[in-house]
């Protein structure tokens, strides 16, 4: 195992991502997208620049046009995106899409799709959840073989970037009952195919998600083996959750930094409110919790890069702890900002509004605490 520190290269990537996102995708940019009711939900120009920086190919091997920087590298970008509330299809495409194709795609698919992702010409979206709360086993969407392809029927929700994706990666049942792990297949479906209906949903963080309905929609093809998709899906979700944990770390840290600054500056009863021990102790506790999050996040990312046996447990550890602490940090952030924290004018509330969907997506604290317990035998 490598030490729990960044390599020089990873640190450089982090610094570059930080500079770029602060300048091109800061909180003000999220406000602009929101207030102008932007239909895409992110800036295509900014995304193009991120592609130019090689960020879209971070998880893609060099053979297929990526940089192969890996999960730890990508985590640095997500942490900085969390700090800036930067919107982009990085998760849907460069993490979930890239991981799915890389893990399950055949040679032809890899060649075609990974290259397209790395060069920014393809946006993908993962359509996995059907229940309101994350449950990847609960798949009632059905795919039936017809001719040389499949016909898909069902309904998916919380499909991040679903309304702008070129291709959807859909988990569907080719056999088995509702909660069996066997019989789930992953399929590629063109978003513009007949029978695909995509409703964009405006979430509390103003980021993209969609409800997607398949009504006899024709799939382009299988990704991986028929009926064996669940194992792939789990690994794709682990990759996604580790990055979401990194984003939550960024959200928590930025909320905290801004709050500490406010405590240092804001005066009441003639002194700075940061001089009140009641707030000092809560801030110090929160500092400690964030230190813990830093450790679990880097460990989970490293485990993915090492393809370690305990990756699932380490990812659940990271997502659970990061979710818990981001919730605490954003709540404390609003409370310590007092009335101003409740206003839309201040940024602090936006961190809270971003944190909740990130916590929920692919399982919140409760889901991952339970999974962690199960993976540890209780």
């Amino acid at each position: 195992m490598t030490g729990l520190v960044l390599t020089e290269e990873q640190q450089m990537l982090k610094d570059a991502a930080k500079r770029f996102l602060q300048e091109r995708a800061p909180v003000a940019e999220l406000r602009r997208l929101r207030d102008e009711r932007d239909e895409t939900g992110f800036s295509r120009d900014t995304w193009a620049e991120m592609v130019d920086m090689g960020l879209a190919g971070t998880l893609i091997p060099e053979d297929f046009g990526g940089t192969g920087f890996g999960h730890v590298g990508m985590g640095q970008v997500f942490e900085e995106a969390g700090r800036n509330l930067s919107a982009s299809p990085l998760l849907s495409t460069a993490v979930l899409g890239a991981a799915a194709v890389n893990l399950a795609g055949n040679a032809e698919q890899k060649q075609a799709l990974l290259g397209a992702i790395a060069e920014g010409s393809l946006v993908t979206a993962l359509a996995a959840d059907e229940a309101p709360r994350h449950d990847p086993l609960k798949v009632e969407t059905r795919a039936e073989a017809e001719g040389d392809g499949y016909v898909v029927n069902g309904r998916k929700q919380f499909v991040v970037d679903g309304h702008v994706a070129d291709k959807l990666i859909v988990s569907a049942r080719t056999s088995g009952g509702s909660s069996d792990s066997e019989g789930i297949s992953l399929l590629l479906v063109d978003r513009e195919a007949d029978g695909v209906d995509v409703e964009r949903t405006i979430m509390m963080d103003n980021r993209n998600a969609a409800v997607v309905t398949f009504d006899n929609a024709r799939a382009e093809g299988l990704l991986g083996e028929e009926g064996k998709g669940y194992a792939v899906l789990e690994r794709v979700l682990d990759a996604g959750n580790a990055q979401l944990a990194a984003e939550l770390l960024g959200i928590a840290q930025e909320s905290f930094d801004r709050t500490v600054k406010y405590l240092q500056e804001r005066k009441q009863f003639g002194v700075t409110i940061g001089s009140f021990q009641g707030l000092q102790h809560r801030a110090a506790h929160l500092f400690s919790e964030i230190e813990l999050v830093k450790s679990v996040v880097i460990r989970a990312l490293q485990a993915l890069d090492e393809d370690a046996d305990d990756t699932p447990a380490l990812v659940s550890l990271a997502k659970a702890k990061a979710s818990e602490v981001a919730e605490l940090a954003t709540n404390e952030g609003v409370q310590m900002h007092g009335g101003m924290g409740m206003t839309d004018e201040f940024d602090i509330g936006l961190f809270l509004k971003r944190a909740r969907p990130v916590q929920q997506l692919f399982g919140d604290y409760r889901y991952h605490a339970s999974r962690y317990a199960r993976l540890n035998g209780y």
Partner: protein
Amino acid sequence: MTDLEQFRQETRAWLEENCPRSMRTPVLSAEDQCWGGRNFKFQSEDQRLWLERMAERGWTAPDWPTEYGGGGLSKEQVKVLREEMDRINARPPLHSFGIWMIGPAILKFGSEKLKQQHLPPIVRGEIRWCQGYSEPGAGSDLAGLQTKAVDQGDHFIVNGQKIWTSYADKADWMFCLVRTNPDVKKQLGISLVLFDMETPGVTTRPIKLISGSSPFCETFLEDVRVEKDQVVGEVDQGWTIAKYLLTHERAMIGGFGRTAAGEKTLSEQAVECLGLEDGRLADDMFRAELARWDIDAKAFELTNERVTDEAKSGQGVGAASAMLKYYGTELNKRRQEMIVAMNGFDGLVFEGEQWDQGAVPRSMLRSKGNSIEGGTSEIQLNVIARNILGLV
């Protein structure tokens, strides 16, 4: 039959006859609430009728004296009236800061003139009030207020800025704390004054909250003329009245965590969202968390009852209101977070008919303010530590 029994029978009969059917359904949205005032648009003819009929008997303020338009009822009768209204799920005929806050203060501290001028229109829902307490930059340090009222003989000229004035953009009059004497210790030298929001120099601007709604405003006061007879109580002695009003407000906000009549309990919602397995909530992490909340909430509800019972039996309530405000608002925040989480994706969508325009997440976001408005949780804890526990 006792007098009280007879009163119950008469009240029941009167309500049966006079409370319109549509006013016997749960209050589900802000539009279902009747706030009255000059510019209020009634949601329905029934809503208007219900207010008028109740106001005519003074039952919008049932315990106020009849000479000022109130119902003149005894404590026991008020309780019977409330029970009988609850029995048929009657909506409150009027939501009013006049009845809840400034009315009782005028009754207790105001001159005869102020009582006659202001109380009857409050009872009838003709004048809607807002509260001018907080100021930008002051936060919890309420006594440090900067809005100045300069003595001009028969009137004051007021200059300053107020913030967090609930519905100031919809209100007709404001009760407002101003500094009438800058040369004394900060709690002294404060007065509580009343003025019409249409007075020249008063402007107001809604503040957009993180929940997307704008229940609060900033109010700017530029050379606003306030007659001297519109001071409640003595000049420079407003702080006592302000504290009296704050206690009222705290008790009101502390009740936020309670489940309203007709609303599903949190555990019912959880069962609906998460399902049961062998009679237990299917998600064991949620079950543990929910049981913890449920126990605290029931204990809090019983504590509200106990405090009321103790007050009735003459035992001092002490500074219970600070404790109730602190605990009740923290409970409600926990509840709202759980509702969002148990609804998963559906609890995160912010717009759209299908998701009730994001009622669930907006309500969660709004709840974050409960522990800030009306005195932050930190201030309540300070009050408990100092006033009850004697820690200084």
